[in-house]
């Protein structure tokens, strides 16, 4: 950087007097000398580079074309132009380097979530070692203010940790003995000792970093277009330059050769597509980096692009829109017993079951008493037990039908556990799945972002599904679906006639793999450590927060917009200047601006994609 500044300054110092001396016939020779000296200082590297790349076979290198343009300017007597263009070019190059290193630094700062040192606790002594050298099973100490270097389980101490680097959640999480802490968390309040669970390369933060780096290879359509375009752009412009240099003089007479030569040389100056080739991938990479900071991992720029025009959003219900935990909604006794009694009987029946519904009923019942024996689970139907000498059954409607117990006709919102004893119907308990807070707002948000169709697919019963969908505002519901039917439904939705935008499937990953795979964009939510979900999906949301889905959509739209702005701007300016140069309305100076100025502006614009606070 300093060398560049000194070089440009030195060249300038020689250049300015040269211009002043040029008009004086006596000093003309001196001005020429100064021009050449100034040029050599500013352009020596470029010339040397030109020779090397030409010798290696690269005839379309920027150095070579720039050298030809400026030397050509000298040959037609335009000394000031030749030097000025080279100077301008070097200045622009310096700004371009600055912009690129700023981008690179921003991205690595954004991705600086993983410390490479750990405090190893061995025989009571703490020593600072490279995190790579720590093995699973070792114990590390994390002090307040330090970043967690490796995935580990707390064995001593309690603290609050900042999980935002991984999950994007701003609310700190409390951890204590038994809690999992992941690499990238920031320990805030207390000292904790933890046993390492994964080696350095396999920690969550490492996997995220790998994912972000590899994401650059899944190019978006915009990036592929730029790559293809740049292959043809430079040779075309050079070919046009040759035509402009030689065809008009042949047609209109050789006296005007230097005019046309000048225009052709200007063309050479605009021949590098650098502005596009740097700024478009930078915008997408910035988007991926910003997403990662929010706890949204895009596996490639192509998914950012697809997500940006989402038309249909398909949700899995349990675990995605709902928390997966049930809670008791209603207790409806019948046959002469009261609520508490019904609850007690059913809770005792379910005392050995680990089904989420059983857990919620037992939680609701609290501590209950009664003599329970001979507990039997009837898969697909329910449970039964002998309570206080009576055989009690608790389960679904099918169980009641099997026992020929009459259940009054009613529709219940939610999942129902019926109970009976001695052939007598005792009543039922209604449990519902808790809708995630913010689910409704998230759906509204999605609609405002242009999502036209919202669909819920679930294996749960219609009444329960309808309950959730009406509360949140999902327009289409398909319930009681077996796993195969879910994928078939998705196929049908994908094949909908008139479908223009992307179909996004959002699920919690565990058994959603096929759905995640066939949709245009598969989003796994709440899958912090599940390798299988990360594998199958295209976008991973590192927390349970469903509001990250509209955030991801907003991010993708903005990123695509920034990339598009750059493409339109760069192409427009370059082509305009080419046309103006061809007809003599623009000088080589304008050409240099079209080349480096546009690149710098485009790169700086792309840096906006890194701003993760906007979502």
């Amino acid at each position, binding site marked *: 950087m300093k060398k560049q500044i000194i070089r440009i300054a030195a060249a300038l110092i020689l250049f300015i007097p040269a211009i002043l001396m040029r008009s004086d016939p006596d000093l003309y020779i001196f001005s020429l000398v100064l021009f050449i000296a100034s040029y050599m200082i500013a352009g020596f590297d470029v010339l040397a580079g030109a020779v090397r*790349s030409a010798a*290696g076979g*690269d005839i379309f290198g920027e150095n070579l074309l720039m050298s030809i343009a400026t030397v050509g300017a000298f040959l037609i007597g335009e000394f000031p132009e030749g030097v000025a263009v080279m100077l301008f070019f070097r200045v622009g190059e310096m700004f371009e380097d600055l912009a*690129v290193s700023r981008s*690179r630094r921003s991205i690595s700062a954004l991705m600086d979530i993983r410390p490479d040192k750990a405090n190893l606790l061995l025989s009571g002594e703490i020593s600072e070692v490279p995190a790579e050298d720590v093995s699973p099973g070792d114990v590390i100490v994390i002090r307040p203010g330090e970043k967690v270097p490796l995935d580990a389980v707390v064995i001593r101490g309690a603290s609050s940790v900042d999980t935002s680097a991984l999950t994007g959640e701003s609310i700190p999480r409390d951890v204590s003995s038994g809690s999992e802490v992941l690499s990238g968390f920031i320990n805030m309040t207390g000292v904790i000792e933890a046993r390492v669970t994964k080696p350095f390369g396999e920690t969550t933060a490492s996997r995220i970093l790998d994912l972000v*780096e590899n994401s650059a290879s899944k190019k978006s359509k915009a990036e592929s277009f730029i790559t293809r375009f740049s292959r043809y752009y430079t040779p075309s412009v050079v070919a046009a330059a040759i035509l402009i240099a030689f065809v008009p003089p042949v047609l209109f007479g050789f006296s005007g050769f230097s005019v046309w030569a000048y225009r052709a040389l200007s063309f050479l100056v605009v021949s590098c597509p650098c502005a596009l080739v740097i700024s478009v*991938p930078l915008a997408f*990479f910035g988007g991926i980096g910003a997403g990662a900071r929010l706890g949204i991992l895009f596996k490639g720029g192509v998914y950012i692009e697809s997500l940006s025009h989402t038309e249909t959003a398909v949700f899995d219900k349990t675990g995605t829109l709902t928390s997966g935990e049930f809670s008791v909604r209603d207790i409806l006794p019948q046959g002469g017993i009261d609520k508490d009694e019904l609850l007690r009987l059913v809770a005792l029946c379910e005392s050995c079951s680990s089904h989420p519904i059983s857990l919620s009923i037992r939680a609701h019942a609290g501590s209950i008493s009664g003599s329970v024996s001979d507990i039997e689970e009837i898969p697909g139907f329910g449970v039964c037990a002998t309570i206080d000498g009576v055989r009690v059954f608790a389960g679904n409607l099918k169980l009641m039908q099997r026992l020929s117990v009459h259940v009054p006709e009613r529709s219940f919102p939610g999942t129902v556990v019926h109970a009976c004893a001695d052939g007598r119907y005792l009543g039922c308990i209604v449990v519902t799945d808790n809708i995630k807070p913010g689910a409704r707002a998230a759906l509204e948000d999605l609609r405002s972002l242009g999502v036209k169709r919202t669909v819920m697919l679930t294996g749960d019963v219609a009444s329960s599904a309808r309950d959730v969908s009406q509360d949140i505002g999902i327009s289409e519901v398909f319930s009681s679906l077996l796993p195969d039917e879910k994928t078939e439904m998705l196929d049908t939705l994908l094949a909908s006639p008139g479908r223009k935008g992307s179909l996004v499937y959002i699920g919690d990953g565990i058994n959603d793999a096929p759905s995640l795979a066939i949709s245009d964009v598969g989003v796994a939510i709440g899958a912090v450590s599940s390798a299988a979900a990360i594998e199958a999906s295209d976008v991973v949301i590192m927390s349970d927060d469903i509001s990250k889905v509209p955030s991801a959509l907003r991010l993708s739209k903005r990123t695509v917009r920034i990339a598009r702005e750059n493409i339109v701007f760069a192409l427009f300016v370059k082509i305009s200047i080419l046309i103006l140069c061809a007809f003599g309305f623009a000088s080589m100076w304008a050409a240099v601006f079209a080349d480096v100025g546009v690149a710098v502006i485009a790169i700086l614009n792309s840096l906006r994609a890194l701003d993760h606070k906007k979502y």
Partner: protein
Amino acid sequence: MKRSFVIENLGCAHCAAKMERSVSALPGVNSCSVNFLTSKMTIDADDDKMDDIFASAAKIVKKFEPNAALKA
């Protein structure tokens, strides 16, 4: 097998694209991708050919950007 190398002083993205294409065309290379923003070149090729491929790739880097260098 995939191996990643750092390209020092990679300043021109257009050159990076040209490098990517040239190295991909080398015999024995399954795929190559250059990430201009992280200055990394990732080559997917047979293990036993990797050393030769590295040497050729280093020359290609020099050809398109004389100031840059491929580091092992």
